[in-house]
């Protein structure tokens, strides 16, 4: 039996990139340096930089710490990350079923 793939696989790294870009945007909009946010978040400068580049995958706990370092609510951060993600492409169900 053939499985239906309703949602296409997301491109690898899209979410990581969205997280990183959002964190960097929040930081630069506040005029904060990497060092300042890292010190508030209790992560190292190099780790924070890697997360901002989408090279490291922060756990939810780390994300919470970084929100603390940025002095923003983690909920607001998640909303911004979500809105920066491209909407998932719609796959016409009828076509899938026909196949």
């Amino acid at each position, binding site marked *: 039996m053939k499985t239906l793939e309703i949602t296409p696989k997301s491109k690898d790294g899209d979410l990581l990139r969205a997280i990183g870009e959002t964190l960097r945007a929040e930081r630069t909009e506040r005029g904060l*340096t*990497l*060092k*300042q946010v890292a*010190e*508030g978040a*209790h992560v*190292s*400068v*190099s780790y924070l*930089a*890697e997360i*901002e*580049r989408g090279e490291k995958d922060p756990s939810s706990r780390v994300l919470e*710490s970084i929100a*603390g*370092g940025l*002095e923003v609510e983690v909920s607001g951060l998640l909303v911004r990350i979500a809105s920066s993600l491209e909407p998932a492409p719609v796959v016409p169900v009828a076509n899938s079923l026909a196949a």
Partner: protein
Amino acid sequence: MALRAYQPAPSGDFQLFSYFPTGDVWAGGTYRPQAVAGVYFFKPIAASDAEEISRWRYPEPYTTYNGDPASVPGLLDPRYNYHAVTVPDGELVGYFCFGADATVPAGRKLGLYDEDALDVGLGMRPDLTGRGLGPDFVRAGLRFARHPFSPPAFRLTVAAFNRRAVKVYEAVGFEVIHSFGDRGVEWLLMRRPA
């Protein structure tokens, strides 16, 4: 923030402070690196210095001080008064920063940074650390800072785990005046007269 006390005061201090980021020397004329401790020269940080510092890698347990290419803009931000320290042949051996970037968020929240002291931050090139060079290096930085900033006192914030740094600061006359924790991380606030 601590640095505010040294910004546009009605007269003297303002000139001393504002000349540095623009590259002029406080005595007038073109800025020249000053040899303030015989072997150490201080100059406002240049992009090439910042890039070099951002590549420095420290051994455990000091990896938290490792930089990253993305830390360059922070090092070059004129608000933070980063200065490169070189030896006479021009080799970069460390850096100092004066003011806001030498404070930590937890301390700011607690209101620990009165304007009666200049906050000092510093770093030495990794291969020069752990060799007993710290006290002279710090003394040189403080001696340098007296001219442009004329602070009543020096203050620094150090992570409590960094016993090696704390020993250096104690050796040059800093005393712990406060310790504070922030979600599992301990900081020490140290101070000494200028």
